[in-house]
Each structure stands twice: as C-alpha cells, then as structure tokens.
C-alpha cells in the first residue's frame, strides 16, 4: 500500500520535477532584482543572541554579465569598495587606496558577507534540478538542488525552495565548498511599487548558531553605470561615491 502511495506521489510530482530549472531561477531572480541594471540600497543588521550587534549600509550597483559594485556606506567602513566581475573580486580599503585582488573565499569574510550582499541572481550562476515538493514557512514549495556553475560563487551548492504558486523564493540552505551547511536563508516578501518583491533576507548561521544576519533591501532604482566603472582601476576614483 505504501509503495502504491509513493508511486502515486511520484507521478503527481513528475511534472514539477521536469520543469526547466533555468526558467524557475529567472522567475525567482525577478523577485530580487527588478531591472537588468540596478542600484540597490542595502542595510545589514547582525544580531548576536537576539541582540543587535552591528548595522552596515551598502549601495550595490548590479549590471548584467555578473558585475556588481558594492560601496560601503557605514561610518566604520567608509571608503571601502568591493567589485565582483564574474569569478574575480577586488577590494579597496581606505588605508591604502589601491584595488586588492582577493579570492572568492575572502569575499565571504567581513562584518557581513559581501557575497551575500552583492549576489542578487541565481540564473546566471547556478543550474540543477527540481528534487521534490514540500512545505516551507507555511508555503507549498518546489525544492531545487542547484550547484554553482562557476568557481567564484559564494555557495557552491544551494537547496532552494520556491513557492509552487508563483516561484518566489521562500527558503534556502547555503552550502560552502566543503559541502557544510553554512547558512539558512528565509526570504521575506513585500510589495514595492505595487509589485511583490523580496524585501529582506534573513540568514541564520549554522556554524555559529547565535548569529543572525538580516539583509534589508531599502530601495531599488534602475541605474546603469558605464562599463568603465566596473574596471578595478576605477575603484579609487570618487565619481560614484566616496
């Protein structure tokens, strides 16, 4: 009897399992990034044992082609900039004012992982398959197991849960290179300009369990910077922001 039920369940899920993962990821991305090129004002709140430990503010300039420029705005980080070009990363520190080439692992360090702040899409970086359906955060979801297709991704493996109804992101398990579960992400939805959007991402650290990072997307505006702005040598100029 139980085998029969399992077969029935598998048959019922088969259409979902066969869905085009890239199409699903593109639909999910649309809830995080509204335009092809955008300026996203982001606030990160780090909570330790439930208390606010620190707040950080970033302006993120995203452009197609896996290009992100992060300008650090908090007083204690003022003058820092991080540039992501595909799998390559550079950091400018105010004490030296020269672009430093950093490894993909180094971009995961810092007060808030700049990889979490700067990466706003999955479709360009990941591929995988639908592995089931389950309820998460009270929402019936498609469960996707996706793997990074490039070496520079922050998390080489993600188990992503998208709402079955409209494919908005609900929940994710983020794995680091050693396949250790590093963080769990919960995506909070809201309405921005009348459209449903992800307004916050709540990251719970699975290694240091008392640590929660809230990433709040304060504003999004279509803005396309010229290609030259994404040149590492441009980082030391003040044309964008200081």
């Amino acid at each position: 009897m139980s085998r029969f039920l399992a077969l029935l369940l598998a048959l019922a899920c088969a259409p979902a399992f066969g869905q085009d993962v890239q199409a699903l990821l593109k639909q999910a991305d649309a809830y995080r990034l509204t335009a092809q090129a955008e300026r996203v004002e982001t606030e990160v709140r780090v909570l330790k044992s439930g208390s606010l430990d620190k707040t950080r503010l970033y302006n993120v300039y995203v452009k197609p082609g896996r290009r992100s420029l992060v300008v650090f705005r908090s007083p204690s980080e003022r003058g820092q900039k991080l540039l992501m070009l595909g799998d390559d990363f550079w950091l400018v520190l105010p004490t030296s004012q020269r672009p430093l080439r950093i490894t993909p692992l180094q971009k995961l360090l810092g007060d808030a992982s700049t990889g979490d702040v700067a990466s706003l899409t999955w479709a360009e970086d990941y591929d995988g398959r639908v592995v089931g359906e389950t309820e998460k955060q009270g929402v019936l979801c498609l469960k996707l197991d996706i793997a990074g297709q490039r070496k520079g991704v922050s998390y080489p493996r993600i188990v992503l849960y998208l709402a079955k109804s409209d494919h908005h992101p609900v929940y994710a398990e983020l794995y680091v290179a050693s396949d250790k579960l590093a963080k769990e992400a919960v995506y909070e939805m809201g309405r921005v300009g009348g459209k449903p959007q992800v307004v916050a991402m709540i990251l719970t650290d699975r290694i240091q369990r008392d640590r929660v990072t809230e990433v709040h997307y304060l504003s999004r505006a279509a803005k396309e910077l010229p290609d030259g702005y994404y040149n590492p040598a441009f980082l030391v100029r003040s044309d964008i922001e200081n």
Partner: protein
Amino acid sequence: MRRTCLFACALGLAPPALADGGADVAWTTRYIGELHAGRGDSPFALGLPLTSFGRDSQRLEQEARGKLGPVSLLLTGTLSGQEGAEPKSHLLANEAYADFGSGADRFSIGKKILSAGVGYGFRPLDVLQRERRLRMLPPQLDGVPQLSWQRFTADDAWSVILANPGHGERGDPKTDGSLALRWYGRRDGVDLHGVARASQRFGLEAGGGFSAVPSPALELHGEFLAASRGERMAPQDGALAGPALLAPTGNLQTEVVHAPVKALGGFTWTTETGWSFVGEAWWDGTAPSAADWQRLAAQAAARNALAGLPGVPAAAVAGSQAAATRMFQDPGFGRRAALAHLAWSDPAGGNWSGYADLLATLEDRGWTATAALAWQGDRTRMDVGVRRYGGAPASAYRLLPERGIAFIGVSLSY
C-alpha cells in the same frame, strides 16, 4: 593657542559646520598608545637620549572623510605626545581633490593618495605614494599633489600623472616632481600592471606586476621595478678612526646606486574558516646590505671606545651616535627579505580578528615578529598587539635600539 584652536575645531566644531553645508562626511576619532622597550646594551646607547628610541608615545587623531561638493576630502587633526617632550598638534589635508570627466576620459586634480603595487610587505611599483609598509596602526597616508588624465575601458586603464608639479628634486623622493604613466589591464582573469616614471633624482623607473587567482583559495602575485638610478643611506666606507668618527652626520652618507632592481613574489592562501596566509620574498636593490650594518656596528663600537678618553667631548660622541641611528629610518632593513603573515577573521561576521607575522632579513639574519588582535563593534574598534625585534648580533633588527613595542588603538566612527 592658534594650533590648539585649530585642533579643537578638528575635534568637535567642524562636523556641524560641514554638515550644514550639505557635506557627506564620516568622522573617526582614534587614540593610539605605544609602549617602547629600549635595548640597554645597544651600541648606540650613548646617543639615545638625543633620539626618540625607547620613549613611550601616544597620539589622538580626528579624521574626516567624505565629500564637500565636488571635492573629496580626507582631513586629520593630530595631537601627539612623547615621553619627555612637549605635546604637538597639527592639521593635515591628507587628500583634497576633484575627480571629473565623462565617458572613457577622466581627470583628477588636487592632493590624492596614489598607492600602487600588488605586494603586502614590499611594493616596488609604489613609485609615487612611496607608502611605508608593515607599520603598526599607522597614521593615514598623506597624498601627493597631482594632475592626472585617465582613460578607462572595461579591461584597461591608462593614467598619465604629473606629480608635485613645479617641483624638481626635493628633500624626500615622495615630494619630487615627476611624470608617470601607469597601465592596468585584465587578460584571462589575470591583473597586469605597468608603470614608468621619470624624475630628476632617479631618472627613468619602469616596472610591471601581476596578480592572479588560479583557485578559489589561492592568489599569486609578483612585481618588479628597474631604475636608471637609486639612492640609499650607508655608513662611510674605509677604516675611520679618532675624530673622524665623531662627525655630526654619524658618518652616514647618501650613496647613488646605479641601475638598481626591486622584485617581489608572493601568494595568499585562504580558507573558508577565515584563515589566510601570505608568503612573500623580495629583493630591494636600494636597501642596506649586511656589510653596511656590520660597518655601522663597528663604527658605533669604535665611538664608544673613544668616550671618556682625554680630549674627546662626550657630547660629540653622543651626537654622532644619535645621528648614526638615522640609518634605521630606511624603510627597508635588508636587500633580501621574506615575510610570513597568518591572519584570521571570523567567517560568521563576528567581532574578533587577529594576525601574527614574521619578517626576516635573509642576508644579516635579523627578524621582527608581530602579533595583534582586533575587536570591531558597530562603531568602535580596539586593537592591541606587540612587536619584537631580534636576530644575529650584527643584524639590523638586533642593532635597532629597541627590543620591542606594545601598542593599543581605540577608534570610534560616526
């Protein structure tokens, strides 16, 4: 009184004034204290009362960083004190420049930090800013007056920089007038750097460098520079004796080095648990040799032997010994050197980070070791650490008239 007023302005009165003008400025107040342990058996001991070696010091800095209209600013007011000396205060515009232009062509005018290079412990390509490396809680860099044109594409950047316009050869190479061409290019994921600089003092300097990340954990880098001329400070050649040893210059002289070369190779290994390790080795053709340090030690010992002899003024011995310690102002203590730097940051975004490093000068077998710990809160940061010097008896780090330094830094950003 005027200086006190200026400093008070920098400490507290300026923020609202600038804010009223619509400025976008972040402020940092910083305190740094250093405890210095002198080396009692130093061959320069007779001259040390005339120097700052072995004296505890502290400084209070107020920093303003941001934009005032089109002008980018970095201003610091500093109140510093040293054991046995009057406190000093000064205001400095570390940077005050305007970047402008549109499209691919961009311009910059004013005083700006112009650091360059891919190394951590040594940077041959840093021919304009000439930043001193591996200092503990250093003050903000002081920019270079410049006028520059830059051309950017997605993968290349060309810069023509006129630094210190109107200056010829000044007291410090950093303040010399020069014309420089810098190029940055990205090819197959590899960063490439090139520089050429022409100045009255060094003639033509030219070099290149690279930085690459062949795996998610590993970064490799290297750079080199060749110059038509260089300079270095060294003790006078030849066997000196008697009054000749008591020159007010400490028997040091600036020597011209013909066609010096500087080169560095290194790597950074990183882990997802927050550890990173930097390993570097370099050659600095303008740094003192082991023979220079041996000569310096021999001359200091010969001066000590003169002290107390009839007709030899004690002040002359002390003055010459003090002047000889200028040799330690050279930013590089050895031509061949290697650095190992281990650091940790909490990968979960925690408050603590730390590092330990060892710099060894390979020709004279000297070393300096540093360990430091930092705590970063929302707006507050604390740093504590120690540095120790040692090595073979005639090595530069062993001759240094200090055994070590303990330091603390506290800063508040707002």
